[in-house]
């Protein structure tokens, strides 16, 4: 009898550990995310996607902006996966690079703007939750994740543009 109840306890234990984790996330992560997402969603509603589109069409000709500001705005205002539709504003030979920059930013953005990729929060949140449990602030981590993200997408964009040019040039020659 004892053996059976021990097994039962161990079995329930597997899930009560999960339950504790779940409650921790729901109370620790969800409330802030809800308010932040509501505010940003409302701001997007007030500014309007059309205005952002007009602005974005103007900045595509500058290499640096094309792989920094453009994907950032696309991520913030259209969110994953609609953000890639801004690819239509850039030239054919830059589309792959823009996609790469924009998709590579869809996790670094979640530290500060969780609404932009709410379905994939846990890349950042998973690690940040661990840091939080150590009693350390995650604000600095979120900001640095964002900044390094911007640097990385710029490098990815430029490099991808070069590789694309090399590949398509070699095949057509």
């Amino acid at each position: 009898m004892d053996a059976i109840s021990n097994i039962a306890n161990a079995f329930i234990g597997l899930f009560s550990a999960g339950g504790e984790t779940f409650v921790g996330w729901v109370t620790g992560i969800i409330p802030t995310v809800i308010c932040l997402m509501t505010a940003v969603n409302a701001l997007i509603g007030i500014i309007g996607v059309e205005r952002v589109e007009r602005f974005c069409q103007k900045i595509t000709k500058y290499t640096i902006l094309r792989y920094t500001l453009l994907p950032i705005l696309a991520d913030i205002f259209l969110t994953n996966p609609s953000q890639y539709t801004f690819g239509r504003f850039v030239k054919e030979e830059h589309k792959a690079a823009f996609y790469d920059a924009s998709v590579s930013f869809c996790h670094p953005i979640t530290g500060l703007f969780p609404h932009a990729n709410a379905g994939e929060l846990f890349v950042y949140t998973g690690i940040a939750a661990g840091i939080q449990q150590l009693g350390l602030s995650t604000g600095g981590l979120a900001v640095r994740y964002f900044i390094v993200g911007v640097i990385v997408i710029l490098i990815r964009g430029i490099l991808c543009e070069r590789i694309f040019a090399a590949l398509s040039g070699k095949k057509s020659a």
Partner: protein
Amino acid sequence: MYKTITIKAGSGGWGGPLTITPTETCNKVLSVTGGGIHPVAQAIADMTGAEVVDGFKTTLPDDQIIVAVVDCGGTARCGVYPKKGIYTVNVEPVGKAGPLAKYITPEIYVSAVKESDIVVSDYKGNAAGSPASAKAAEPAKQPGAPKTKEQAKREIAEANAGKQENIVVRIGKVVGRFVNIFFQAGRDTMEMVIGTILPFMAFTATLLGIISASGLGNVIANTISPICSTLPGMVIIAFICGIPILSPVLGPGAVIAQVVGTLLGAEFALGHIPPQYALPALFAIDAQVGCDFVPVGLSLGEAEPETIEYGVPAVLFERLITGPLAVLIAFAFSIGMY
């Protein structure tokens, strides 16, 4: 002769596109918007040749209404007309909401519509008239000149006469719009939380619970943690995640990156990995981001097939370099944190 138009959802809108054709008996555009006839209702009337009616002044039998234009923030009006089987155009960005939400379907309802979202259509497959008027006798289309613009304008001026918007109405409208936007933002957020975030939390928490309670966590702590607490280890992880054969497999839904992120988070919490490795870890586990999605993402950006053909290998090979590079940059930026 009435013209066919197509109305699509505007930015932030939902539903549609609706393709409508007025008939001899079903030819009224009902504008149920405060403060006179709405420009969208007017535009629909102008383009189809139908007649626009101010719903606050006149009532009409349902089977004469080809389309109702409403400015509803998601409570009643946006559901009332769909329930009656009348095509409904909402100028506010409201989706399936309110007590009558179940009647609001993309076949009969479209929202956030502006004048620019209405186009003359040559689509012939739609049924003429509104569903509500379908039970009326088969309407015989007879050629008849639509009203000229001048005529229409005069009628509108008459309809709007004595209804010049005063300052109170205008302020009310601005406040109403502001509240609507926030309310809808809240609705979108809750939908996201309930539909996506909570289910993922349930899945990951259960997985994590099993891993930690079953002792599997110790295995991970002893094998993976030492690799993740060194810079070369991180670089190697990023390199592996970036290998062009593996990266598209590891990518989908970022599920693997998220699960690994959560597992590493637990190791950070236990002190097995020093916190200054958090930033490089974020990039190490994510070198494959979006590698599964390149063709779809490119076609969303309206890329030519040839662009996709060269774009996919360009992205995949470039990750092999930038994946580890990102870890190094992140490591440099971690200096001074924690």
